[in-house]
């Protein structure tokens, strides 16, 4: 019996070593928890599925950006805190390329009216180019100066697209516009129509309808989340391959000591620029996929806190590990981003609070006379605020207790093959003898 038990434990432990298992297990727990929360809140099946769908969407998008950031920071040691800027470039360019040339109805500004796939490629390329523009002059700076340059760049982008100057402009005689502070409305039809208009898709709609009672538009949203998961997998695969290769090895060396890597014959600038541009392009892609199906976008969406969210996700998962990046995004979204609100709803479901005091002072004063209820109510009323406090505290806590994150301690070997010990007979058969 006991051997059986240890046996299963050992087997479980070896299972746990597989990244796929880890991802599945943690995500299983997340999804199960949220399904249960949905049940507790009295959601119907379609509500629960919808909650999980939204969760998937957020995790997938954050996962993509976090992977791209991991490529920058985790592998190469490039400290990028201008993520929001690159996402903005990707999304805005795509939208401007895709918007119809005729600014009718709610859409105030004209676009180029290009087909969506072309527009997406355009957006990704533009984000990559933005990366190039930052990289060429700035990559030789110290890590922290570089960081400040990137965040300054992101703010320049955000303020630039907000400014009246670019609200409407013409480029080579073509009318374009960022919409300024008003933002852009995506009046180009559902970009996913390429898929949604396929014949097979109608059976998917029927299926979700019979399973969850979804309407066609909800079915589309569900399908979109699934597409995002596929894209995430693709990016994961891409970055995994990138890091486990001689290319990735040079990146790692740059992170460790760039000058020494140069002396070993590596054109480190070349590598850094390549990897920075690649990461920025992926950030642009994530920015596009994040919002291009929404009705519209405003520059507000790209304030610096988006960048910090991504950093928190990366730190949770552990810089340097791709699996960690995906897990970190999952945990960030489930616990820090969406979690507190669901917690509040759950509590509200059980307890009904009276009116809270209006001010902090009003909530603290009664504590002196032993009445903590007003403080609790005030705290609850201000839950949204405390959610951000929680994010900050979580980041500090992680940096204190587990700076390497969940999986960052497990350095992934930077080689295309496992670096195993050569067997002994091999070594004697080789030129081993000549050194003694």
């Amino acid at each position, binding site marked *: 019996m006991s051997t059986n038990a240890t046996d299963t434990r050992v087997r479980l432990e070896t299972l746990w070593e597989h990244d796929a298992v880890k991802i599945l297990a943690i995500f299983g727990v997340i999804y199960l928890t949220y399904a249960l929360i949905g049940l507790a809140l009295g959601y119907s099946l379609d509500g629960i599925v919808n909650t999980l769908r939204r969760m998937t969407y957020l995790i997938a998008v954050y996962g993509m950006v976090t992977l791209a950031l991991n490529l920058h920071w985790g592998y190469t040691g490039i400290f990028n805190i201008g993520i929001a800027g690159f996402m903005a470039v990707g999304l805005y360019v795509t939208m401007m390329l895709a918007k119809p040339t005729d600014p009718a109805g709610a859409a105030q500004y004209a676009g180029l009216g290009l087909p969506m796939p072309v527009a997406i490629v355009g957006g990704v390329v533009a984000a990559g180019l933005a990366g190039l523009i930052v990289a060429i002059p700035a990559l030789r700076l110290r890590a922290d100066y570089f960081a400040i340059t990137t965040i300054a760049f992101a703010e320049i982008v955000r303020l630039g697209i907000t400014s009246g100057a670019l609200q409407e402009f013409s480029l080579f005689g073509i009318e374009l516009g960022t919409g300024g502070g008003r933002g852009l409305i995506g009046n180009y039809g559902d970009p996913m129509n390429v898929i949604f208009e396929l014949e097979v898709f109608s059976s998917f709609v029927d299926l979700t309808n019979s399973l969850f009672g979804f309407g066609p538009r909800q079915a589309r949203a569900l399908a979109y989340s699934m597409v995002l998961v596929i894209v995430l997998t693709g990016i994961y695969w891409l970055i995994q391959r990138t890091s486990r290769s001689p290319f990735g090895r040079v990146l790692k060396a740059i992170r460790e000591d760039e000058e020494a890597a140069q002396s070993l014959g590596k054109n480190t600038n070349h590598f850094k620029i390549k990897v920075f541009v690649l990461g920025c392009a992926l950030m642009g892609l994530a920015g596009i996929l994040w919002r291009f199906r929404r*009705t519209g976008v405003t520059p507000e969406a790209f304030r610096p806190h988006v960048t910090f969210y991504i950093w928190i996700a990366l730190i949770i998962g552990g810089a340097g590990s791709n699996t960690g990046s995906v897990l970190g995004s999952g945990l960030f979204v489930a616990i820090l981003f969406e979690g507190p609100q669901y917690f509040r709803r759950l509590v509200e479901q059980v307890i009904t609070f009276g009116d809270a005091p209006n001010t902090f002072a009003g909530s603290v004063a009664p504590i002196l006379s032993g009445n903590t209820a007003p403080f609790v109510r005030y705290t609850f009323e201000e839950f*949204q605020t405390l959610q951000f406090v929680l994010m900050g505290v979580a980041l500090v806590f992680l940096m204190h207790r587990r700076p390497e994150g969940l999986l960052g301690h497990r350095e992934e070997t930077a080689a295309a093959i496992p670096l195993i010990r050569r067997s002994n007979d091999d070594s004697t058969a080789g030129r081993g003898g000549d050194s003694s």
Partner: protein
Amino acid sequence: IGDEGDVESGGPDVLNIIGYPESGIQIFRDFYSDFDNGTEIIVPDGMQDGDLPNEVGNEMANVTGTGPSSDGPNEDAYTDLYEDEYDEAPGVFTAHTFDAVAVCILANIAAGENDGEAIRGQMRRIANPEGDEYGPGELEDAAAAAADGENINYQGASSTVDFDDVGDPAEAAYDVWEFDDGIETVDTVTFEGSEPGGEMDDDAPGGTDRDDVMVSMLLPETGDLGQLGTPMAQAGELAADQFAGTDFDIDLQAEDTETDEDTTISNGGALIDAGYPTIVGAGSSGNTVSFVGNSSSANVVQCSPSSTALSLSNIDDDGYFFRTAPSDLLQGQVMAEVAASRLEADTVATLYVNNDYGQQLSEQFVDAFEEEQGGEGLNQVSFESEQGSYSGELESALSD
């Protein structure tokens, strides 16, 4: 002081400052400390905050404001209700929120189920002409009538609440007000905008034997518009309370938008997931624009009490989006008229918050002033919120 103003003569006769009190405090402080040379100022609903003079530290006697009026047929009834309950005067957009919640509940009762698509078909049957008229104080009777499948014509606190074919209010009224120890309304302008109309179901299933009537609010209780949103949410609760004596249990759920796009999407999504077929919200036009896609794709009726942006009229909403707040198309005209006749201006300039609301209202105002009033628009200057100083913006807006 007269010659001081003359040194930099020229400049607009009237400056329209479009924004919210958050930035307004700083803008007016900068204005009064460095640029006060007799220019008249006009502001829209966003600045309609009786406390502003206190915060600015000036009486602000040169400021005239406009704002959507709660000048519906039953305004007084509503005001009494509100003052009884909360012991304070109802603020801007609270009447619109009351009406939005009331209409959503009535339409739900008429539809007989918590189903957004069915409710969409009942919104106009409840609100538009041809039917018995009910006001804010008569909601219990209105509920009974709706449950019987009758046509009713809700007569709101903010307006008659008739929806046109795009879901905007067909009629709108605006107050002209000044600061005088709070907000003092000095005039009211009423517009007959478009015709009531649009698609609706032919009949109402109604019925009383059913689950809770579910309705939700998605309003800014914190963030930039937090000051505005909190009384709005109170008014919404007041509307739901009016149904206390009926056979229906009202399930009213409120979520906060924080005046933030992501939070709007996230908390609004939770309302959809929880099965609420109607959402009263969101507060600011920007947030509403980004949320409309989500609500309509989930077949949820969204009815905003305070999003006034033009773009929302024609947005792709599959007929699910309504509002009780009038479009800024009208407010721009009112402001232009006030500037021209009341303030006797020949030239105007605007200083507007750089978002959907500010940009559109600025354009509407200047267009109307030039085309309808025959005046001249000088500068339209945008500003970002939360700046430490607005002297540069004021300088440009006030230059000639």
